[in-house]
């Protein structure tokens, strides 16, 4: 029974847990109305968009995806007003239906929602320091992330992103003459790890073939590195992912592989995907 559970259920469970941990143990002061708006806003938008674009399909299973998006928004996006969160939720959900190519959306919904309201409204921000750099949280993300990624077969993306980003930061540390604790401090950031495990790995919007995903991860790591260290953008990861998202289409055209589908995903298909890639 447990084996056949949709990986999205795990993801919802973990993201919900992180939200509780953030509020309970990490001193986050989230407005309850804003969190509720994210959850309800995403669900309602999902139902409306689904009824317009895919009227023949049962919209209920897709609410799991919308819940993942809303939890992602609640975890990452900070705002003074629920209306800003509603806008983020709307952009996030509709991006899945509007920015499509060959029946695949190429923006990570939560990411595009965040970037849209942070740049357009002046009423939203992301707190990259919100998790701190504790081992405990590092391990919590790693354990939860590995479980979900093993199920969807996208661990390669996380590893490639983290490894290439770590290498670039290490090279810069050596060049600048920083002691290794500076590098360790950067790499231990809970926000970076959460991004690497839960956002950059969204199987629906990232390239399908493994080689393409590896290239894609390294490109995003490079963009993050440049934005953070040379343009001094504290939440560089989100902008890097946003800018590089359309690259998915080109990479998919170069390396072809079957599209990811939550519904078709079962333990056996997972093994097959691995072999094909």
């Amino acid at each position, binding site marked *: 029974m447990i084996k056949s559970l949709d990986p999205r259920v795990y993801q*919802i469970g973990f993201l919900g847990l992180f939200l509780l941990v953030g509020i309970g143990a990490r001193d986050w002061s989230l*407005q309850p109305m804003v969190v*509720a708006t994210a959850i309800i806003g995403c669900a309602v938008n999902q139902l409306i968009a689904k009824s317009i674009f895919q009227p023949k399909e049962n919209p209920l299973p897709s609410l799991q995806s919308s819940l993942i998006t809303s939890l992602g928004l609640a975890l990452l996006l900070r705002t003074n007003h629920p209306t800003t969160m509603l806008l983020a939720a709307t952009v996030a959900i509709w991006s899945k239906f509007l920015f499509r190519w060959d029946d695949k959306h190429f923006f990570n919904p939560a990411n595009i929602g965040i970037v849209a309201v942070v740049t357009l409204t002046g009423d939203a921000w992301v*707190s*990259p*320091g919100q998790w701190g750099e504790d081992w405990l949280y590092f391990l919590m993300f790693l354990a939860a992330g590995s479980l979900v990624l093993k199920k969807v077969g996208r661990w390669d993306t996380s590893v490639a992103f983290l490894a290439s980003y770590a290498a670039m930061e290490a090279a810069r540390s050596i060049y600048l003459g920083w002691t290794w604790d500076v590098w360790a401090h950067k790499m231990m950031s809970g926000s970076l790890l959460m991004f690497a495990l839960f956002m950059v790995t969204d199987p629906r919007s990232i390239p399908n073939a493994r080689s393409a995903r590896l290239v894609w991860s390294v490109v995003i790591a490079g963009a993050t590195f440049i934005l953070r260290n040379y343009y001094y953008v504290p*939440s560089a990861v989100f902008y890097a992912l946003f800018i590089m998202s359309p690259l998915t289409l080109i990479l998919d055209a170069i390396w072809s592989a079957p599209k990811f589908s939550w519904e078709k995903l079962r333990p056996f298909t997972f093994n097959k995907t691995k072999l094909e890639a």
Partner: protein
Amino acid sequence: MKNLFNLICKPLISILLALVLILSNVAEANAFCGFYVGGADAKLFNEASQVIIAHKDNKTILTMANDFQGAVKDFALVVPIPVAIKREQVNIGSTEIIKKLDTFSQPRLVEYNDPNPCEPPRHVFESSGRFSGAIPPPAPALSKPRSSLGVTIEDQFKVKEFEILILSAKESDGLETWLRTNGYQIPKGASEVLKPYIRQKMKFFVAKIDLKEFKKAGQTTLRPLQIAYQSPKFMLPIRLGMLNAKGDQDLVAYILSPKGQVEVANYRTVKVPTGQEIPEFVKEDFGKFYKTTFQRSYEKENKKVAFLEYAWDVSNCDPCSTTPPDSDELKKAGVFWQEGGDRTFITRLHVRYSRNKFAEDLVFQETSNQDNFQGRYVMNHPFRGTMTCSAANQYRQQVSKRQEKEVQNLSQLTGWSAADLRKRVKPLIAANPIKKVNDQPFWPWAKP
């Protein structure tokens, strides 16, 4: 799939919504701010560095209080800055404005006086006032460029009693040697810390004192230096300061922004404990209480967070520890956006750092967060006058319970023993002998 959704997602949503409701109750609890009694200013913390950072878009005006303890002739200040600056970008800051912002934003003790439970309630009001000051005029510049040991003097000038050099360097060893041979007493091991700044192509703002000017100006203490620059780098270098630190160092930064709260992007920003009701006797030494509370929070957070002590629009406060800074004072603090009609939001961050816990310099980020926050502790004075009504007994019981809760709170915040604290509490019953003994039943619980 539908069943699965019912099984997993619905309970999760209910948990989240339940949490939402709990949180909303907590948020409503703090509605009144009480009367200001006293505060814990930055002076409490030995060797606390204080800076004011006024920041909008890519422009920063940094005011550095000079807390230098030794002889004035030995004073030397080396600050890495993102870009080279000219004479007109350096100014003498005002010590008063740093004091003012410190007092305005310090953690505070507020008090409430219980009304006589035997009389109907009445209302109380607070008043506020403002005062203004003058901006110090700039001094003439002096320029003599030269270069040796890979060190280039980008600019050299005098600002009142300060002799300023703007340096760029190719090698950190060269810079260290140059500074030593030119009479700047910099700590050993500086070159290792200077290297990353040189490689990032940062410049160095170097200041020492012209003793003649210092004496002529009749100064007894060092005045703050104020520098203005344009750069997307919104950070504060703290690593150089660690070199001559004996242990943990305190930094209090008053960050002014037209947008809203400022937070640290590469460390957690944590609010200091606030809103707790604490016993009346804390008034006797509020400073000691806050110092202990801060230290305890610092240890609890593993010594690697920045503490938020205050965040508020500067135009108002509640309760006010002093009058809000007026436009002249804000100008002195470096606020340069007032003419455009923008508001000013102040964030007071208190960072206690040491070499092994703060590897990286502090990187800040402006947010549009408009939430007000203050480190505020509440003291309740029971009504100690004569009470002659039946409500008095119930009131005395309430006070006794409240006093016990206050002791618990204080013990939790400071780690002091609750038993010792209890001895210092002035119970209400002793001060108020019950007048109508006959009104009290012998066996209250036996009543129907």
